[in-house]
């Protein structure tokens, strides 16, 4: 298997895994704390391999997530496209932030994502969500360094193996 192909499988695998994690159940009390995994993975790939990602890909991943989630077709596509656009726009700066600053940037991105979600939900006629609605971005921020290091590590190992 060529290196390019192995890299592609990591890329595709991480996105599929993030969608699975999104569906995976948590105990009732922890459910609002679940990070928005597809967003974290897409942020990683937009930062590290922008030639692979793009707004179009984020849109497609979002459509897939919508199909799985069954809430409203286009909702996550919109959120992920907007998120990826912002990351790609500020990629040069975000990439060289130290980890804690990067995590803060991720928090802002995820909060922005929640605001978008809130707007969409309110337009769709859903009731206003409770305070726990705003918890997920913070757990996402805490999860970010681990996601980053994990995918980075897998890629580095693979590269070492290839050479």
């Amino acid at each position, binding site marked *: 298997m060529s290196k390019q192909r192995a890299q592609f499988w990591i890329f595709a695998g991480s996105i599929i895994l993030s969608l699975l994690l999104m569906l995976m159940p948590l105990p009732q009390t922890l459910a609002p704390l679940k990070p928005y995994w597809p967003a974290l993975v897409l942020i990683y790939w937009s930062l590290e391999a922008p030639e692979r990602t793009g707004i179009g890909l984020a849109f497609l991943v979002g459509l897939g997530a919508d199909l799985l989630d*069954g809430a409203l077709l286009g909702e996550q596509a919109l959120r992920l496209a907007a998120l990826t656009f912002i990351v790609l726009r500020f990629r040069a700066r975000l990439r060289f932030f130290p980890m804690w600053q990067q995590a803060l940037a991720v928090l802002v991105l995820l909060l922005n994502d929640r605001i978008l979600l809130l707007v969409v939900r309110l337009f769709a006629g*859903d009731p206003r969500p*409770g305070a726990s609605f705003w918890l997920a971005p913070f757990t996402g921020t805490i999860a970010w360094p681990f996601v980053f290091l994990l995918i980075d590590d897998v890629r580095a190992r693979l590269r070492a193996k290839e050479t």
Partner: protein
Amino acid sequence: MALPHKESSPIFADAAAGTLRLMGYLALACALMVLDHRNGWLHRARYAASVAIEPIYRAAAWPGEAVQNLRTAFTGHRDLVNENQHLREALLLAQARLNRMNAIAEQNTRLKQLLDTRRMLGMDVQLARLIDVDLGPARNRVMIDAGAKEGVHVGQVVIDAHGVMGQIVEVLPHTSVALLITDANHSIPVVDERSGLRGIAHGSGAPDRLIVSDIPLSADVKVGDRISTSGLGGRFPAGFPVGTIAKVGPDPSGMFAQASATPAAALARSGEVLLLRDQPEQVGPPKEAPLVGPPATLAGSSNATNPPPRERAAPAGGGRPVAAQNDAVTQR
């Protein structure tokens, strides 16, 4: 000096193109959302993609099941014995109640026969299991492992051993999605079992609370009252427990009272659910019975001797079709 120029211009070009593309995608997403909201495209897309989607649900539910199995495997012997004892007692109690219920049910049938209104008392149900998948914390929905191929259809009532859980809102070939009664978009017509007061219980969005709103301030509702389905509206059959009133107070406007209730069904814990097969008696005029009598081509010639087939099949009172319907249901 050519180099910086060359380097900077693609960046700006890229940024402009990126913004345009973002606009395009956002517009596309908005269009999709509006169309989906109006036409329900998502259901059709999900149904078409179900071959790919359903295995993913099973895969996502797998770790949860594995944990459950592990827990069962490592539960201590003592716990099992205790649980067994507990279940035995519960079974005895249930059996005793059931026997009493049987007697009452028999009496009821007799009385109903006396009154000449034949109705079905037995329930036709289908057992299904929940697939443990997170469909978003904001929505109180559950996924069930039976779908269109197993005869599930939208609108079927989902119950568990303790009470009403919700209703089916979406059907895929082998899975379906049920909206729980606690979902903020769900309402269920209920009646207070003690005072007979009717009301509507809305979901609160929280998994353990229902809200019965717009109760007159003078109405007779007390903490501890059990509420059950009233059967009005025709979606839920009457008499299934819905919950217990936990709190009664004035609503924000002060014009009406508002009660909050805890659902009777074990919404967060149930692993197996029952789907009610038979719909309650429908509201409105009965369905037109199939045409009987000679075919239309011959009907014209023999009009003088036979009454028109339509009149014969559907008498104005509606009594016959209901009876016929009940016959059909009992035979099933």
